[in-house]
C-alpha cells in the first residue's frame, strides 16, 4: 500500500512536470495564434440560404448574409500580462460566405500561455473618425459594403435573411459609434467582450501555432435580453431599436476549445 502511495505521488509529480507545453520560452520568441469564428444557430451549423431555423418567437427563418467586424484584439496570459495586437493589424471582417475570413490570423504574438482574449465587435470610435489614410483593408470603403456613406460610419454587424413570417427579407444593419462630436452624439453600439478559456490555454511558441475556436450563435441575436421578432422588426438599421440588437449580439460569442498544434 505504501509503495502504491509513493508510486502515485511520483506519477503525479512526473505528470505535472512533463508536459511539452512547459518548454522554456526564449526572449523575443514569437508565434502565430489563430482565432476561429464558427457561426452557428443554436446547436446547428449555419448554412447560408438553405438552412432553416426557428427563433423563440416561433418564426422560421434562413440567413442569406452574416458579416461582422472583430477588432482591437487583446490577449491575456495565464499570469495576467496583456498583449495588445497592433491596432492596424487588428481589424477583421468575419463573413460567413468567405471561409478564410473566419480564421483571424494573429502573427508576431509574443510566446506565452494565453487564456483570455478581449475584442470589439465593431469599429472603435477613434478609427470611425480617422483620416481616410487609416481606412485600409476591411476598413476601406471600396473593399466593404459595411459602410454608411451618408452618415459616415461602419456597419458593425450585418445579418440578412428571409422568413415565413414576412413577405420580403429581413435586414439588420447595426452600427453607431457615438457620433463625431458632442453636438452630434448618437447611441453607441460598440461592444467589447472578454472571453476566458476556462482551464485551457493557447500556448504560443515559435514551434506551436494554437487555434482557439469560438462559437458565434446567431440564434441569440433573436433570443436575447430582448426577444427580437422578425415580424415586428423586419428592418433595423440606424435607429434607436438597434441598441437592443447590439445588446443581444454582445452575448453571442462563446469559447469552444483550443488546440495547440505544432507549426506546420
Amino acid at each position, binding site marked *: 500500500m505504501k509503495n502504491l502511495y509513493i508510486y502515485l505521488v511520483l506519477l503525479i509529480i512526473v505528470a505535472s512536470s512533463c508536459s511539452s507545453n512547459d518548454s522554456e520560452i526564449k526572449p523575443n520568441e514569437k508565434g502565430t495564434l489563430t482565432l476561429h469564428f464558427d457561426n452557428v444557430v443554436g446547436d446547428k451549423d449555419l448554412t447560408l440560404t438553405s438552412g432553416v431555423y426557428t427563433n423563440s418567437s416561433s418564426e422560421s427563418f434562413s440567413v442569406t448574409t452574416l458579416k461582422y467586424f472583430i477588432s482591437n484584439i487583446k490577449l491575456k496570459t495565464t499570469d495576467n500580462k496583456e498583449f495588445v495586437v497592433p491596432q492596424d493589424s487588428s481589424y477583421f471582417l468575419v463573413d460567413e460566405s468567405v471561409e478564410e475570413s473566419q480564421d483571424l490570423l494573429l502573427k508576431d504574438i509574443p510566446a506565452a500561455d494565453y487564456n483570455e482574449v478581449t475584442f470589439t465587435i465593431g469599429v472603435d470610435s477613434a478609427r470611425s*473618425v480617422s*483620416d*481616410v*489614410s487609416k*481606412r485600409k483593408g476591411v476598413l*476601406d*470603403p*471600396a*473593399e466593404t459594403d459595411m*459602410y454608411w*456613406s*451618408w*452618415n*459616415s460610419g461602419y456597419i458593425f454587424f450585418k445579418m440578412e435573411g428571409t422568413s415565413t413570417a414576412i413577405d420580403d427579407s429581413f435586414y439588420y444593419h447595426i452600427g453607431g459609434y457615438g*457620433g*463625431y*462630436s458632442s453636438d*452630434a*452624439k*448618437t*447611441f453607441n453600439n460598440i461592444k467589447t467582450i472578454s472571453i476566458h478559456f476556462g482551464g485551457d490555454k493557447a500556448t504560443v511558441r515559435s514551434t506551436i501555432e494554437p487555434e482557439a475556436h469560438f462559437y458565434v450563435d446567431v440564434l441569440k441575436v433573436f433570443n436575447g435580453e430582448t426577444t427580437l421578432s422578425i415580424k415586428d422588426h423586419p428592418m433595423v438599421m*440606424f*435607429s*434607436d431599436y438597434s441598441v437592443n440588437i447590439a445588446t443581444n449580439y454582445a452575448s453571442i460569442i462563446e469559447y469552444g476549445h483550443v488546440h495547440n498544434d505544432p507549426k506546420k
Partner: protein
Amino acid sequence: MLLTCCDGEPEPEMRIDAPVNFPSITYNTQKNPVTTKGFELGRSLFYDGILSRDGTISCGSCHQQGAAFSHRGHIVSHGIDDKLGTRNAPPIMNLAWQKYFLWDGGVHDLDLQPVAPIQNPVEMDEKLERVLDKLRNHESYPDKFDQAFGSNEINTERLLKALSQFMVTLVSGNSRYDKYKRGEGEVLTSDEIEGLNLVQQKCASCHSTDLFTDLSFRDNGLDETTKTDYGRYAITLKETDRFKFKVPSLRNVEVTAPYMHDGRFRNLDMVLDHYAEGVHNNANLDPLLKQGDVLGISLTKDDKARIIAFIKTLTDRQFLRDTRFSEASK
C-alpha cells in the same frame, strides 16, 4: 495662388486662397497638402463620368460652375437614368471652412464626402471598387496619379484626397462686397449699403461672418406638414434635430436658385416672404425666429428690396468664370 517652381523637384505647393476677411480654415491640409498636380487630378475626376455606373454622371453634372457649383433651376437633381434625388444640390464653395457636409451634416470629413454620391443609386450608382478598377485601366489616369502622389498606385485614399484638393481650392471671396469690405476700391450703392445693414441686423445671427453662415443646423420654420425629410434627425436621432438643416451661405445665391433643402422657393422674393410672413411654429423652430408670439423677421417691402440688392453684391463673378476651376479640355 502661390506656386513655387519646379524642376524635377517635389511638387509645387498650392495654398488655399484664404481671403483675409474670412475666419481660419477647418480642413486639415497637413493630412492632404494641396499640390498643382493633385488639384489637376481632382479637377479631372470631378468632371469625369467615370465615377458613375454608365459613365454619364460626373460631379460636374449637378455642380455647375456658373451656378457656383450648384444645379441652377433644379429643385432636386436628376442623376443616373434620370432618377430624382431628394435634396437640392448645394454649391461647392468655401468647403475648407465647413465642419460638416450635406444638408444634414451626415459626413464629417470632406475626404469621405464623394463616397456618398458615387454609391447613391439615384446619383452615380457605382461601387468605389469599380471606379478604382476603371481608373487603373484608363489610358491617362495612372500617370496622373503618379504625378500627383509619387507612384501610379490608385487607391481609395488617393481618389478621395485628389477630389478634396480640387474642392478645397474652390474659394469664393472676391465678390463686390468683399472688395468693398477690404477697401479694394469697390463702391456699393446706398440701397446695397442699406441692405448690408439690414442683413447684419436681421440675418447675421444665423448667416454670420463673411462666410455668411454660422454652419449650424436650424429649423427655419418651413412648412413641414406634408414633408418627410427629417434633416439632421436622421443623423443623430434626436427629436430636437427633427427638420433641422444646415444654414447655407448667402454667397452667390443670386445664381443658385431654387432655395432651401428641397428647392421649394424658386426666387429670393419667396425666401424673404417666408421669413417675413411665412414662418411656421414648428416644434423645433429656431428661437431666433420666434420673439414672444411673433414669428419670423419683420421686413417691409423696401427692406426686402434692399436686402436682395445687397445679396446680389455677394455674387463672385471671378469665381463663376475662373478657368482654373473649369472643365479642362481633354
